[in-house]
């Protein structure tokens, strides 16, 4: 993993690179893509796009930035963009992660948005390199028909372009689209294109100028449940007595085709494959190992349908919502668990402590529209700072918990549109003096002491007027 850069720095960096890119926009024309291959995986509701670009510097000046462009409709659903470069000779290749930052270019046609990939070494004139790009799109499959009955299966539209939208000239390109099943209702033909099994192939297309676009529409069956967490609040509470308490509040929705009309339990129970094929029956949460005191409940009490499997490397919590979720149905619930502190809290050399914990949502294959992580530091801790590998919004709050006097500092981080690849680690640094741990026990002890003293005093004072 790369050295993480703080959000504020990142912002500065974006501004800087914006200025920089305006000065050097001419460098766009020097590059060309000699070969591009795109694989779009539509098997779940998160669209995964693997892009392999062979970039060639045809200009005279070396350049270190490669721009990716996206249509504005896709940028809103873009969860993450990652770029890797293959290094080394054949057979001994290693992949190196590159920095990717959203950026803007002047005279962008049709409000196209850009991401800049920063190469490690500037690409010299005449050289070429191969970039592996992965980006994930959420909410990009539109159910059609928008409402289905219990026995129908879910059909969705996926819109994209047969040609890769790029600010560079592309010599040769191919696109493969993988659908979850062989059941494809229709797809736009842009010759040469054909379908075989679960794969639709567009291309190869030769010599397309920058910003070529050819809209395609694929209508196919996707019965994977569209599990979307509309809002997730994770609260991580550090107790220096040895426990890390995590509380996660979910608002889960099935974002697929809306359920229409009757829900019949007898059909659902007797013919589970034909009925409610796209319904969300259970979820799997991957929790850290050595998890303890797990609970799963909602606002009206415990939900009894869950299973916890633990081993030395990971814990898996299989949860069923109170009722199967059909399209458009919602459920809210809370998962809470405790973790041993020594697995997550470490000390730096300069006597600061830091929490190392995973960002993102522990549920597998879910999209989180809005995530809020609250790290509750123990009372008396100072100078909190968070280090997150991607830009997030941050602010501080104060929370009062059991017998607090000054309150606990809470580092709040918010991010929108998350996918499972965001489950990387973040760090929260702070300083804490262990003497503060004793504050509350001492307070309680002195309160009881005063109470007893008051009792003794009362028994020894005779306040009566009459003797």
């Amino acid at each position, binding site marked *: 993993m790369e050295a993480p850069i703080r959000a504020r720095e990142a912002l500065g960096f974006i501004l800087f690179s914006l200025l920089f890119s305006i000065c050097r926009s001419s460098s766009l024309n020097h590059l060309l893509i000699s070969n591009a291959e795109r694989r779009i995986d539509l098997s779940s509701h998160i669209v995964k796009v693997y892009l392999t670009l062979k970039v060639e510097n045809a200009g005279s000046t070396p350049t270190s930035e490669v721009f990716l462009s996206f249509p504005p409709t896709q940028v809103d659903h873009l969860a993450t963009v990652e770029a890797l470069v293959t290094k080394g000779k054949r057979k001994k290749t290693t992949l190196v992660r590159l920095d990717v930052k959203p950026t803007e270019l002047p005279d962008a046609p049709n409000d196209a948005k850009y991401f800049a990939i920063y190469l490690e070494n500037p690409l010299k004139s005449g050289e070429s390199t191969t970039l592996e790009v992965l980006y994930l799109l959420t909410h990009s499959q539109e159910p059609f028909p928008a409402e289905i009955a219990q026995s129908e299966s879910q059909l969705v539209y996926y819109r994209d372009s047969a040609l890769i939208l790029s600010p560079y000239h592309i010599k040769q390109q191919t696109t493969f689209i993988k659908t979850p099943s062989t059941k494809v209702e229709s797809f736009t033909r842009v010759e040469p294109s054909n379908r075989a099994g679960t794969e639709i192939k567009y291309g190869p297309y030769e010599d397309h100028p920058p910003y070529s676009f050819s809209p395609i529409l694929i209508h196919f069956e996707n019965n994977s449940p569209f599990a979307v967490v509309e809002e997730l609040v994770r609260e991580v509470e550090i107790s220096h007595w040895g426990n890390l308490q995590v509380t996660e509040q979910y608002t889960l929705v099935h974002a697929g085709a809306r359920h229409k*009309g*009757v*829900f*019949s*339990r*007898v059909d659902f129970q*007797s013919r589970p494959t034909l009925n409610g094929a796209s319904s969300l029956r259970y979820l799997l949460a991957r929790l850290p190992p050595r998890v303890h005191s797990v609970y799963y409940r*909602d606002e*009206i*009490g*415990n*939900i*009894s*349908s869950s299973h916890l499997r633990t081993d030395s490397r990971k814990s898996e919590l299989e949860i069923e919502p*109170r*009722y199967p979720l059909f399209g*458009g*149905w*919602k*459920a*809210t619930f809370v998962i809470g668990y405790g973790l041993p502190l020594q697995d997550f809290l470490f000390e730096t050399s300069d006597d600061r402590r830091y929490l190392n914990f995973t960002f993102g949502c522990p549920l597998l294959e879910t999209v989180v529209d809005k995530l809020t992580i609250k790290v509750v530091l123990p009372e008396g801790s100072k100078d909190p700072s968070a280090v997150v590998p991607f830009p997030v919004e941050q602010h501080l709050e104060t929370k*009062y*918990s*059991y*017998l*607090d*006097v000054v309150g606990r500092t809470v580092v709040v981080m918010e991010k929108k549109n998350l996918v499972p690849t965001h489950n990387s680690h973040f760090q929260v640094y702070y300083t804490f003096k262990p003497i503060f741990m004793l504050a509350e026990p001492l307070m309680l002890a002195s309160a009881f002491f005063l109470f007893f003293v008051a009792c003794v005093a009362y*028994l*020894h004072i*005779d306040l*009566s007027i009459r003797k």
Partner: protein
Amino acid sequence: MAAPEASTAAVPTLYTNNTLRNAFGGVLSFFILLLIGVLAFSIRLFSVIKYESVIHEFDPYFNYRVTQFLTKKGIYEFWNWFDDRTWYPLGRVIGGTVYPGLTLTAGTIWWLLNSLNIPLSVETVCVFTAPIFSAFASWATYLLTKEVKGAGAGLTSAVLLAMVPSYISRSVAGSYDNEAVAIFALIFTFYLYLKTLNTGSLFYATLNSLAYFYMVCSWGGYTFIINLIPMHVLLCIVTGRYSSRLYIAYAPLVVLGTLLAALVPVVGFNAVMTSEHFASFLVFIIIHVVAFVYYIKGILSPKMFKVAVTLVVTVGLAVCCAVIAVLIALVASSPTKGWSGRSLSLLDPTYASKYIPIIASVSEHQPPTWPSYFMDINVLAFLVPAGIIACFLPLSDASSFVVLYIATSVYFSGVMVRLMLVLAPAACITSGIALSEAFDVLTGSIKFQLPGVTSNAEVDAGETSSDTSEAQTDEVKAEKPDDTSKNRPLKKSKKKERELAENPPAKATAKAKAKAEKKRLLALPLEASVISLLLLVVLGAFYVVHSVWAAAEAYSAPSIVLTTRSRDGLHVFDDFREAYAWLSHNTDVNDKVASWWDYGYQTTAMANRTVIVDNNTWNNTHIATVGTAMSSPERAAWEIFHSLDVKYVLVVFGGLIGYPSDDINKFLWMVRIGGGVFPHIKEPDYLRDGQYRIDSQATPTVLNCLMYKLSYYRFVETDGKAYDRVRRTEIGKKYFKLTHFEEVFTTHHWMVRIYKLKPLKNRIRGKAKKSKLKTSSTSSSKRSGTKKKNPWQ
């Protein structure tokens, strides 16, 4: 203690021994009381351990919802709360119709904890309110019994009350109901009444009115207090026990208590207007007359007094007649003769079943069966008579109150199973007295029989006898001025000091010896006392075992989540919450849900949806409307529901898994209550040869009514035979379709089924147009003809 310590040097060793014993006894009883509190709290936690920390049953959900509102919006909003989520379209003024004691108590606890930064949720506070107050109640029992028969009896009855099954049934963790705090308030009010009666202190009289105020806030059962205390006062007057202490105990209570009670919105002017309170006013007048007579008697010579009496009696009779005539006129002008339906059914047990089916339909309003006495108070039932006898040896003001309390509560518990709860404290107090007296006698006689411990026993006997004589002074009143200061421990010790100074130790021992002689004559043979002691211990052990069993097995189920144990492990039926969660997340926030009134509170609290009727049952017509809809055929039911703007209909069905308290079993009540208001619903239509059945012998009215159809819709497809596991029969009509309702949700075990009303059909359909027009015109004419069919049109 400083004062006794200073005096130890001066007084002989006997006294040192006594203070030490007293101090030791004080500390011991303090710890015993603490343990009793812990026991009372922890025996009620079985429900949390076996199930979960959750609110139970039906009414507690309403209280929980009110508490949530209180903590969120504050006290002023709470008083003015008009709830538009229930009794649609009427709504309910919650602030004015609810007993706020419980809610305010839990709200205050929550507020206090949160201001100390202890972030407990409202739910947690509500769940644990009842166990906390049971601990308080057992301490209050200790105080009350101590006033009657001393500390030993107090501790015994406190421990009995801590685990009396009847009280456990209403106060397990999660059973967040009025009774949980009301029983504490009841006992505490009685304690303060007796305390005032014993001391004649105005301070306790004021506290007594405040405790009564808390009781009025908490529970409608406060009328029991305001009738029992006047009865006792009257009893005291009649038996010639009138004293100024009685006056102080009673008069402030009536004046202050009534004023305070009128402050509670739900009581308001009822505190002076309804017949339940008239007894107290009547006795108030009588006690004043008696006090006046005693006063006159004191200042006049006997001859003059006789003249005065004849004069007053003639004038007084005339005035009394006038007053009584006015009262009768006032009472007769009110529709229910000033009595509420529930109170009337208390006085006349057959009243409810005759006139108010809605009161009769509630299971807890039924008279109890004999086994339920054994279940709820267990061995106490056998100890109570002994306790009553002990109360007469000797009879004091306080013990006569206990006798009166047990006698009335036995009657009331015989009328309504719910009032077993009022009997339980009385039974505990009397049994505590009985047990403690029995132990006293038995251990006393053992001590005298054993030769080795005689010297010790003498001192002991002397002490106990002086204790009892002290208790007797309460009624003898030889040292009246000293009695008032009895409550202060310091003064008490001083008083003893003085007594000791009066009687030199040698004299005291001689006196004790004489008493011991007397005692020895009363002693039982050694073997008999040892055996009866053992038997008593066995009896107590039996009680403990039974109570723990009742707490763990019988009364801990939250009834919102059910479990069964089978060979392959524990099965959980969480269907109610499944349905409520579904409603709360997947229907519009303003949709109205119709169900039988049992599920009203839960639907508003857990699903947050508007309901038509709920467990408050204040409007019989409205409930009858829903009952009529449920017992009507589909089309008519649809019209009623549609006119009430209902979108979903919820029915509870236990036929698949064998859950007996489902809507089909409650159905006859729906018919009865519906038929009570809308005469076209006739109960005989639903009975075949006087029997209610749903199998092939069922009447066509049953097979076509909405409740049958909604319960059994597509039921046959589960097992092919449509075998109902509750009624143990195959249902009568297996294959049918719904035309005006559609199934939108059924829970995992089919316990809750939710149907949606289909929208109106598009009427323009060419061919059918003419006939449709005709039917619509006939139906409209029918509607105008039978006015009472549907009140909402």
